[in-house]
């Protein structure tokens, strides 16, 4: 797994910032689900908004808004752009 110094978990991305997916530290069905939604390594992702409690968070992926729990987003590693 690529964990260069610039790589951060997706969950730490601020609203409005964009990033690129580096790796998914997820297993089994959830991993499959995330991949099926088009979140594969290299995909650009933008953080759009947070729910009032801060979890889940909405991300723009390939022109589609996808909400992820922080728990899951923390396992997705990205390079900020």
């Amino acid at each position, binding site marked *: 797994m690529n964990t260069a110094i610039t790589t951060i978990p997706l969950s730490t991305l601020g609203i409005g910032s964009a990033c690129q997916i580096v790796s998914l530290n997820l297993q089994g*069905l959830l991993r*499959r*689900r995330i991949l*099926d*939604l*088009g979140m594969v390594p290299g995909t650009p992702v933008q953080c759009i908004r947070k729910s009032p409690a801060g979890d889940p968070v909405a991300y723009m992926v*390939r*022109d*589609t808004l996808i909400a992820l729990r922080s728990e899951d987003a923390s396992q997705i590693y990205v390079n900020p752009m």
Partner: protein
Amino acid sequence: MNHSATKEHHKLLSEHFGITAIPGQFTVALAGNPNVGKSTVFNALTGLHQHTGNWPGKTVDNAQGSFTYLDRSFLMVDLPGTYSILAHTIEEQVARDFICFGKPDVTLVVLDATCLERNLNLALQVMEITPKIIVCVNLMDEAEKKNIKIDLSALQKDLGVPVVATAARSGMGLDTLRQKLHEMSIGLCTPTPRQISYSSEVENAIQQLLPNVSRLIGSNLNPRWVTLRLLDGDQAFIKSISQYLNLDLHSTRLQEVAV
């Protein structure tokens, strides 16, 4: 298909999928992501000749309809809208089981022209299961409004399967679609869909397992695809195999192969 094989096929359709095909009728499975206008295509092709119900034992809607083209009758089965057919949800399982075990004469995959990239995932997954697939790029009118241009002949060449552009709402492209469905059903067109090559690690594992898997499942299913599911460790799929193919004795051996 000879007479007894046809009878067997109809028995399988009615027992496992609650579908009654009349003799000589072609079956067409309709797959696609949610909200791509799948049902609009379905309605446009079948009109009022529809019958709705549930998949046997599941709370998932099952719509069937028929139409006639060049004196041949076609039974269309509208599968639930899914992003994938690797079966996490009951809808995906229904869609996968029908494409895989229901042996439709053609699987029509409807894509949304305005977000092709995400939609192609499903088309590629279906292409791994069966070569009898037609890709229908729907919502061409919407794409035009958004100034999206699609190079259909390049798409057809890259995928290796027939691609038909439609705007089902206005009826555009439906005639071509009927014609292609007919051509493929009567065997005039046998595409060679592009197959995904995986990393050398995975490909090596496939090559090791493939002869055993082929021996176990015979010509019922695409052995490469079954091997991939085994490598995935997909227990639900192994269950489906024994259920539909009466391979009870072999299911334990399939699991051994998987380990």
